[in-house]
């Protein structure tokens, strides 16, 4: 199977959106459905922080109790057992988990009503997708108990982690980490933040003459930015033997040709083999891509094949575009913050004919309506990183 075919065969999953500062909304009037859903996301986030702090305090205090009193550990344990401390603390922690779960459900039920009404009101697909994504991605993050630190998952496939492949695992994770850090640096750049504002303005289709236009755009772009960043930072890597990737239970498409995939639940599944930086970059890109973008979908040239649903999805197109974006810069055709012009387009086509692009970038060039390149490149914030530094 060619690299390109492999790339096309990979599974995609709806990605992200974001998170934000939980305390700002109460100071503001909630006037729109989007604001309502953002408020919901913020409150859930706040509750999760509270639950996390609660759990941490319990452990810390138990540690203090043992350390301060200066009794032998077995004596402490004996007294603890007589008071049933462990069991009672467990029950309290269970109650805390249940409270969080109930709180999430209640809030989701309130916002679900809001989303249904929004859909009936004829709002744009992206807006609906984004609003839904704000809630959905938030819950998926918390439900999967993500590790903040990138490390090989050892939960499901312990048998694959042995001394023989220790070096290989280390190499894959080092490469993932390097690419991820470069993506984070790029997202924190002014160019990316500026482009994101433009993108948000376009997809929300707010009236630019509205007096609160800037306020709304700032609010949404900050929210989207924070959630994307957090998702990228928290995504966990699961390494599996290559022949188990396609049929893994978390791979919805159950396609044996799948090389790697993003589960949409905070995990990227990669093959336990020599790392391929294009594949890693592509999957990481899914964590910072919006689930719906009309422009990316409309610009897709239908291939009249069973690959259309995959290739035409916003999530995949954004990931392919990210590859193209960085390669345009590496080939000296166009810098990220630079406005895309007809001249750039011509050079890009010339380089494509010379076979200078990666399979993913080629896919994007060949499946995108030429008349929409300029709009896409100037209005979609992307996840470009310096390819030279991306390759470890």
């Amino acid at each position, binding site marked *: 199977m060619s690299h390109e075919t492999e790339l096309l065969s990979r599974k995609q999953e709806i990605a992200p959106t974001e998170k934000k500062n939980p305390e700002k909304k109460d100071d503001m009037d909630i006037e729109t459905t989007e604001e309502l859903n953002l408020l919901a996301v913020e409150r859930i986030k706040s509750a999760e922080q*509270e639950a996390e702090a609660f759990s941490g305090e319990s452990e810390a205090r138990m540690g203090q109790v043992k350390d301060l009193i200066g009794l032998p550990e077995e004596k402490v344990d004996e007294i603890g057992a007589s008071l049933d401390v462990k069991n009672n603390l467990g029950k*309290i922690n269970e109650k805390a988990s249940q409270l969080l779960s109930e709180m999430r459900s209640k809030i989701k039920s*309130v916002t679900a009503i809001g989303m249904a009404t929004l859909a009936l009101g004829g709002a744009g697909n992206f807006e609906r997708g984004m609003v839904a994504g704000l809630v959905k991605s938030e819950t998926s993050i918390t439900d999967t108990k993500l590790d903040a630190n990138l490390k090989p998952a050892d939960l499901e496939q312990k048998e694959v982690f042995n001394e023989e492949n220790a070096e290989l695992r280390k190499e894959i994770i080092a490469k993932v980490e390097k690419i991820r850090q470069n993506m984070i640096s790029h997202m924190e750049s002014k160019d990316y933040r500026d482009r994101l504002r433009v993108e948000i303005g376009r997809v929300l289709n707010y009236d630019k003459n509205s007096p609160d236009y800037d306020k709304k755009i700032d609010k949404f772009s900050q929210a989207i930015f924070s959630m994307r960043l957090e998702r990228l930072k928290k995504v966990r890597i699961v390494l599996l033997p290559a022949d188990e990737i396609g049929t893994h239970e978390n791979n919805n498409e159950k396609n044996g040709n799948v090389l790697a995939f993003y589960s949409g639940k905070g995990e990227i599944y990669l093959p336990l083999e020599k790392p391929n930086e294009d594949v890693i970059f592509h999957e990481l890109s899914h964590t910072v891509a919006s689930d719906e973008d009309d422009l990316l979908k409309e610009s897709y040239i239908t291939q009249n094949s069973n690959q259309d649903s995959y290739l035409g999805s916003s999530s995949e197109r954004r990931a392919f575009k990210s590859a193209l974006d960085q390669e345009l810069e590496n080939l000296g055709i166009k810098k990220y913050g630079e406005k895309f012009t007809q001249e750039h387009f011509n050079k890009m086509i010339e380089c494509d004919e010379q076979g200078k692009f990666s399979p993913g970038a080629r896919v994007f060039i060949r499946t995108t309506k030429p008349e929409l390149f300029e709009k896409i490149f100037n209005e979609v914030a992307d996840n470009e990183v310096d390819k030279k530094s991306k390759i470890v």
Partner: protein
Amino acid sequence: MSDSDIKQKAEEVRMIHREYMEKMAELRKEQSQLLDDFMSKLEDVKKKEIMNKIRA
């Protein structure tokens, strides 16, 4: 959805969050009480141990 519906739902969201935080505060007290009792019991044992050493 009308403006008033949105505002009402926003208030519902805030209330759900508020109630959650209140319940968590109660749990904190419960947790704290449990650990205080534990600590107190340990201190008693420690005191007895010290007293026994002094007497001895």
